[in-house]
């Protein structure tokens, strides 16, 4: 649906976006993740035809951003960064203006729909500058979805909101993702993790990772950490190393009632859980708990963006 080839954007001598390539399929929810200043917004601005690429190409449903920008703009609903709004208009007047620009025939039905979806009941006749930040954000989203666009692009939709508002907006985004191709940019990992099918991590204008959350995690997780709790004699624990190859014991922590916590690490390629279980059984220890520690996407993100940033 959206194809981006070798996209480059220079601001003077600063290269904001550096040869990035990716595709977005219909119905996908894509998270665009990166630290501030990584080139996320710039990419989205080129996709929405606000800026033109220095080099490279973007096509949306076989329309080219340079040649058919009007057609592309008709397909897209866009909430820019910082959610700019006409503060002196009322919510009604603003949405009416947007509906007219979007050439909607039945404004009343569309208005009813977005008011319903975005929870704007009771504020429709208020001037936008009297609304709270959360409501302003809903107005911004309402503006982006009023014409029921195929593609919805939200640039940092939850920045600056309080935790309750963030949860509400995320729920709304999830709901919208069911019916649209959705691109969300964010520098907050949990947000993207909570909503998106696929994540693209971008740093210094380059894509450093592209995949589902699980793929990203597994590609950066070459060691598995295993936590077990057994009832056993503390001194006997190191025997494990003799009987099972290629494992390391990270720590042995005795607790009350002979319960011992053991941390084990092994290479992710060979799962050692069966061998470990068999060994515990053979020793007649009592196994209370065994679980793998999941590497967080947070750690992946930090690795990718800090390593790259540090090398410059």
């Amino acid at each position: 649906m959206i194809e981006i080839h070798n996209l480059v954007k220079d601001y003077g001598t600063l290269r904001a976006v550096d040869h990035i390539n990716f595709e977005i399929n219909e119905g996908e929810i894509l998270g665009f993740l990166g630290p501030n200043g990584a080139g996320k917004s710039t990419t989205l601005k080129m996709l929405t035809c606000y800026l033109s690429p220095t080099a490279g190409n973007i096509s949306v449903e076989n329309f080219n951003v340079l040649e058919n920008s009007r057609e592309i703009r008709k397909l897209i609903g866009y909430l820019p960064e910082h959610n700019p709004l006409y503060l002196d208009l009322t919510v009604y007047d603003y949405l009416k203006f947007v509906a007219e620009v979007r050439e909607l025939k039945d404004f009343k039905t569309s208005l009813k729909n977005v008011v319903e979806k975005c929870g704007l009941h009771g504020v429709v006749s208020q001037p936008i500058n009297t609304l709270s930040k959360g409501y302003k954000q809903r107005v911004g989203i309402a503006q982006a979805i009023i014409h029921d666009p195929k593609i919805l692009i939200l640039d940092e939709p939850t920045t600056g909101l309080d935790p309750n508002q963030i949860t509400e907006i995320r729920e709304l985004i999830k709901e919208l993702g069911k019916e649209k191709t959705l691109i969300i940019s964010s520098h907050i990992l949990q947000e993207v993790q909570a909503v998106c099918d696929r994540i693209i991590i971008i740093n210094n204008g380059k894509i450093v990772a592209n995949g589902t959350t699980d793929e990203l995690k597994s590609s950066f997780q070459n060691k598995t950490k295993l936590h077990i709790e057994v009832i056993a004699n503390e001194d006997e624990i190191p025997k494990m190393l003799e009987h099972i190859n290629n494992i390391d014991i990270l720590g042995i922590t005795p607790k009350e009632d002979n319960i011992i916590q053991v941390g084990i690490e092994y290479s992710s390629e060979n799962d050692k859980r069966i061998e470990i279980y068999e060994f515990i059984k053979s020793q007649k220890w009592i196994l209370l708990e065994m679980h793998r520690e999941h590497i967080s996407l947070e750690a992946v993100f930090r690795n990718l963006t800090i390593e790259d940033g540090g090398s410059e």
Partner: protein
Amino acid sequence: MNYTKLIANKELKSYFSSPTAYIVLVFFLLISGWFFTSPLFINNIAELASFFNIVPIIFIFFIPAITMSLISKEKNAGTLEILTTFPIKDSEIVIGKFWASLSLIGIGLIFTVVHLLTIVILGTNVDFGAIFCGYLGIIVLGAAYSAIGIFASSITDNQIVAFIISFFIIFFLYIINFSLIFIPDAIVGIFQYLSISYHLSNFFRGVIDTRNVIYFLSITILFLRLATITLESRKWK
């Protein structure tokens, strides 16, 4: 769908939803009314000449004031990004805003019909041809000033800066006709041709000369085009 008209309507709505339009209109009518009435009975001539002569000077302040925010405010608030990612062309945005400004000027001029009625009631043979020419001159003048104001508004995100820039461009074009003695003979012609007041004087004398009309239309189109280019410059690679 006429996007230009949509933009114009939106701008007119925001003029009248803030004090701008009211303040500007009241001051325009107060000042022009004063300059119209005070010499009327002294000269004892049923004509609008004194009104027509003051309007270009009032417009030097009045039009930068109504055009200064048209684009700069959108740049500052970031709403320009919303507007330009709607399926609207940059030129339609600029022209829409131009019509809004010209409409507000038109509304101001409608109120001055009071002056016209006054002289129709008081005077005997009123020269309607001259009055028509005068109004036409003021309208093309308003169009040219508005285009300059919109251009100034497009090159900055600060309303005050926009006001000052458009004020100076307009003031310069207005004043050159009075400063010709300082200019070498060889190029006086060029400067005179650039001058707003030179081209306006024919209208006020009751003459419609195509050269004068073309002058004002060229200024209008030139500056609207420059404003569009300025907006489009964000897309330069």
